């Protein structure tokens, strides 16, 4: 038997952004019916490569060639999404490119009919219906996209590509926003599409799903091809080492010793019920020496819990208790003084003041202490000294204490925040999406620090959409859905599927619905 035909080939693609070489002479082939995973850390060049393939960026060197219907390999003109679409390349972006004010049907039709015509809505509907029947991408075509779930929006995106007869489908981090069940559903669809001849390129940095769905894996590192292997040969360690370029020290979690309850939510309600930010009757405890995971799909009330723990909101009803005493009149400053540490979700925006220096950002929560100010005047020397030791201790890569914080990469901003909040030996830590967008090395560092704080006796609440992260850290799980928090139990007794069902709003006690 001969190999399936090559659908797409990238030939020595090089792309530079200033001095940075984002892609350095990368070549790859994609065959019919093949699912190719493109793995790499943030900044490895995966998304840049795909944006070149799809015409969003123009490469400095190299060729993109796509097989035509006749079987010839034709090169694509650079920088033209229209040409890529016409050649049968479809892309599902990490951030969906949907017009939320239009229906799913209209989003799929958009750009497929001559602008100055009456359109062919009914014909389009019939064709999309048959694509849905064939692929299993069930979705309500007439609802406004704004009212669809993230999983449904993604299905619309895939349908957009299939409606244009895509023979190559590129998915950029498609599972980042899905529940485990939705992700599994996506894999089923992808296998089915591949079986029908579609070539799929699947960009990810999650090893587990890559091994589960792909036939072949290509690893990028620092803009270069670091290795290529079939899924059958691959194992997690080997791939992780390829991605990082050196052996990754695993973070190990030892059982902690759990102390008394430090913080209690007692029947807390906040906001209008059924809005994305509301909380309804939330009760849970955070105990000393314990890491508690708050799992959930984003937009189910996590931001409100984070706001409460940051002193940015107060409950409409119910009580927050610190050491058994009700907390009244909270403010961010009071919370910091009471020993709260906050790692905000949007660290670049809420975690640092970009135009202020690294030293100022490290001192910012503590400027009233006698060490850093006297009679209301800042002690610049003390700030510098503190910044220098923090930069060294937390490995914050920056030109120096006087560098503006906005120039730091995401991982280094997070290390700066860790340095700021952990040096004060906080008793209660809110870690909101602590490693989102960080590479494996920085992730491990953040996890180590959080575990060390727990071992010191801090109570930690970790909010994350990444279940792997939560399982790596947590002693106990809470799951939030539609503003309600359920206690899922100790981490050791749970698996991903159970958490996934709770995230989707099905309670423990009822049988999961047949899919």
């Amino acid at each position, binding site marked *: 038997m001969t190999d399936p035909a090559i659908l797409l080939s990238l030939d020595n693609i090089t792309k530079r952004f200033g001095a940075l070489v984002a892609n350095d002479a990368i070549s790859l082939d994609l065959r019919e019916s093949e699912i190719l995973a493109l793995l790499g850390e943030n900044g490895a060049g995966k998304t840049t490569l795909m*944006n070149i393939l799809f015409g*969003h*960026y*123009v490469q400095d060197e190299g060729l993109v060639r796509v097989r035509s219907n006749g079987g010839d390999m034709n090169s694509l003109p650079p920088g033209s*999404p*229209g040409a890529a*679409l*016409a050649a049968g390349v479809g*892309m599902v*972006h990490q*951030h969906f*490119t*949907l*017009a*939320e*004010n*239009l229906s799913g049907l*209209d*989003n799929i*039709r*958009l*750009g*497929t*009919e*001559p*602008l*100055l*015509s*009456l*359109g062919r809505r009914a014909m389009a509907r019939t064709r999309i219906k048959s694509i849905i029947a064939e692929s299993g991408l069930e979705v309500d075509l007439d609802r406004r996209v704004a009212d669809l779930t993230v999983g449904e929006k993604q299905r619309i995106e895939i349908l*957009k590509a299939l409606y244009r007869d895509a023979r190559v489908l590129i998915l950029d981090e498609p599972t980042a926003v899905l529940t485990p069940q939705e992700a599994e559903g996506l894999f089923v669809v992808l296998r089915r599409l591949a079986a029908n001849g579609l070539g799929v390129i699947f960009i990810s940095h999650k090893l587990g799903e890559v091994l589960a769905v792909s036939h072949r894996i290509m690893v990028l590192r620092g803009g270069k091809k670091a290795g290529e292997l079939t899924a059958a040969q691959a194992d997690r360690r080997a791939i992780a080492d390829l991605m990082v370029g050196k052996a990754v020290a695993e973070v190990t979690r030892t059982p902690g010793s759990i102390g008394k309850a430090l913080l209690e939510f007692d029947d807390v309600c906040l906001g209008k019920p059924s809005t994305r930010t509301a909380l309804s009757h939330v009760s849970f405890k955070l105990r000393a020496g314990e890491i508690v995971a708050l799992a959930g799909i984003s937009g189910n009330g996590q931001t409100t819990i984070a706001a409460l723990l940051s002193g940015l909101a107060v409950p409409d009803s119910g009580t927050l208790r610190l050491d058994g005493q009700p907390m009244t009149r909270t403010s961010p400053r009071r919370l910091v003084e009471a020993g709260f540490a906050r790692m905000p979700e949007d660290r670049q925006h809420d975690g640092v003041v970009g135009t202020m220096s690294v030293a100022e950002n490290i001192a910012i929560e503590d400027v009233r202490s006698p060490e850093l100010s006297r009679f209301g005047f800042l002690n610049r020397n003390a700030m510098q000294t503190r910044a220098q030791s923090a930069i060294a201790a937390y490995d914050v890569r920056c030109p120096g204490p006087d560098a503006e914080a906005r120039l730091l990469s995401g991982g280094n901003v997070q290390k700066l925040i860790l340095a700021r909040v952990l040096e004060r030996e906080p008793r209660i830590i809110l870690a909101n999406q602590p490693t989102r967008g960080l590479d494996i090395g920085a992730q491990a560092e953040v996890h180590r620090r959080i575990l060390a704080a727990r071992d010191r006796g801090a109570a930690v609440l970790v909010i994350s959409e990444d279940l792997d992260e939560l399982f790596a850290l947590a002693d106990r799980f809470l799951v939030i859905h539609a503003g309600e928090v359920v206690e899922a139990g100790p981490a050791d007794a749970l698996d991903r599927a159970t958490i996934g069902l709770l995230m989707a709003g099905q309670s423990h006690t009822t049988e999961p619905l047949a899919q």
Partner: protein
Amino acid sequence: MDVLLDIFASANFWAAAIRIATPLIFGVLGALICERAGVLNLGIEGIFVAGAMAGWLAVYLGAGLWGGVLIAALAGALFGLLHAFLTVILGLSQHVSGIGITLLATSASYFTYRTTLPDVSSPPRIAPFQPIAVPGLSDLPFIGPALFQQTLLTWLALVLVAIVAFVLYRTPLGLAIRAVGDNPASVEAQGLSVRGLRIGAVVIGSALMALGGAFLTMSAFDAFFFGMVNGRGWICIALVVFASWQPGKALLGALLFGAFDAFQIRLQAEIGQVVPGQVFLMMPYLLSILALVLVARKADYPRALLQPWTKGQRH
């Protein structure tokens, strides 16, 4: 009470309401098209002036009435092109560019008027559009007489409401315009040109705005005065929000405003001795603020309004 009844029962009142609404219908449709594509066009006030001046001057210099309408639309399109260049191509602030266009278009119009007609003391007149009777419609009781007093430009405005609604909601072009104002990335990813759509929308929208101005000098009046636009453009900007960016509601909003305005003129005549005239002049504006407060708080803005789009940039 009798006074109010008399006012509302008179065909003249409704005729005036429609006449006052006509320039607003043009303007609000134009602003709506621009904003649906994601571009706020605060040049509208100046484009009204430019349309009023250009259309009138063309007729005064010998072009036919429809020739004047065409010239006015071209003048509007030209300023629209400038606005599109500044905001869509260069990605500059839409507020600043729009206000700049208003100042520029207003001054350029006055300048052209003064230099073309240096010696006139009172504004020269032209023969404006005349009211026409539409067979059938004009015989209807009550609304017949109100419509009977309108000119072809008013009919054009009404027909344009239907055309704009049809294009926006029933054609692939309208789909693309609505999409580009919500999320330009959706349009780009489907192989269409974000810039092309936005430039086109701003140019067409600005041409419609200019027709609103042309109506003032070629139908409502027969001459060009300084200050005659008098904030009508700004009212259109408010009406778009009131209308939630929908052509049908835009028509309703313009007619409501026209009715308020016609009403205050008549009320002034009836009880003007007791209440100072300025109170009446304020009324339509106060009511439009009130209407905005009631409607616009839950307004569904085009999500990409005011956001420039740069190809290849991450959003």
